[in-house]
């Protein structure tokens, strides 16, 4: 009886350790609403779940069109932000060189921000879900040591402007979407702006 109790205790303890290894250490993750009251999600409107060849991967590697669109915009935005003297001080770590085989700062930010946008725009693909910190905690020096000061309204506005520049670099402008989806850009910007009150603390 005593042996069985000890064995059960060991199994329970070990199982709980291994279970929590798959959970990211994080606070509540909340992402802004992705859908308009009626109609397709933003994720559907930027391409949805149609699978296409990933242009940056080996032949045969597929990616959802929605994620590809968002990733392309995110990647362009990272370049624009890194060159923007007004806000690039938040992203100096992007430039830190890593040794071969390690994930670069660019790759880490690209993946996490793309995951965030996929989740926020309504993607239901389990592989694309954002599992990082909430926007509030992620932008508060009290909860993360990777940000040394609070974000200001001016910095946030410039960030959204840079996203707009990145959209244009990817051919997404008010002119190009005028006939197919005239509200696409304004809805995307509205989604980003919905995080302002959380991020600017």
């Amino acid at each position, binding site marked *: 009886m005593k042996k069985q109790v000890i064995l059960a205790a060991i199994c329970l303890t070990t199982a709980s350790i291994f279970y929590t290894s798959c*959970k990211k250490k994080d606070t509540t993750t909340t992402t802004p609403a992705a859908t308009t009251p009626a109609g397709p999600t933003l994720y559907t409107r930027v391409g949805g779940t149609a699978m296409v060849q990933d242009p940056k991967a080996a032949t045969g590697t597929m990616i959802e069109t929605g994620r590809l669109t968002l990733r392309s915009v995110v990647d362009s935005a990272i370049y*624009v932000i890194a060159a923007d003297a007004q806000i690039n001080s938040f992203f100096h*770590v992007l430039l830190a060189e890593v040794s071969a085989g390690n994930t670069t700062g660019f790759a880490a930010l690209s993946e996490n921000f793309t995951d965030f946008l996929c989740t926020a725009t309504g993607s239901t693909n389990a592989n694309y879900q954002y599992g990082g910190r909430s926007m509030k905690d*992620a932008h508060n020096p009290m909860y993360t040591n990777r940000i040394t000061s609070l974000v200001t309204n001016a910095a946030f506005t410039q960030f959204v402007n840079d996203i707009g520049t990145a959209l244009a670099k990817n051919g997404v402008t008010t002119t190009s979407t005028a006939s197919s989806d005239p509200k696409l850009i304004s809805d995307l910007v509205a989604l980003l702006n919905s995080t302002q009150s959380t991020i600017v603390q």
Partner: protein
Amino acid sequence: MKKRKIIKITLISLSVVVLLFAVLIVHIALVMKPKNVENNIQLSRIDFKQPVDSAEAVKMVSFVRHLDGVDNAVFNPKSGILICGFYNQKQNAQNVYDKLMAYGHYKAERFMVGAADEIKGCPAMGADKSFIYTMASSLADLIRK
């Protein structure tokens, strides 16, 4: 007798740990995301100390983009900053800088990230992970290879 009991319990415990570890490996293999295709894209920055007109900027960016291993390059004329992204297995920041300077003889410097700045950055890049999460991520990377 007591010694045998202790050995027996230890062996059983170790077997349970090994078994659960094997379950963890299988679980990670089944649920992990595909490897990020851009894992090796490294950014570098060059700060220009001279004005660069739009025509020169276009030539300069085109030159950098055509270098081997370069993914993309962007120049901000307002800040005079050029950002270049390259696959770090094929190219390196110093080589890009040297080739660009040889091409245009610009007055420019490489921006080097200081030690203090290296710990700063957008939190979406994912820091502050627990030991257990880091261990599981390392296992996932090992399985992907």
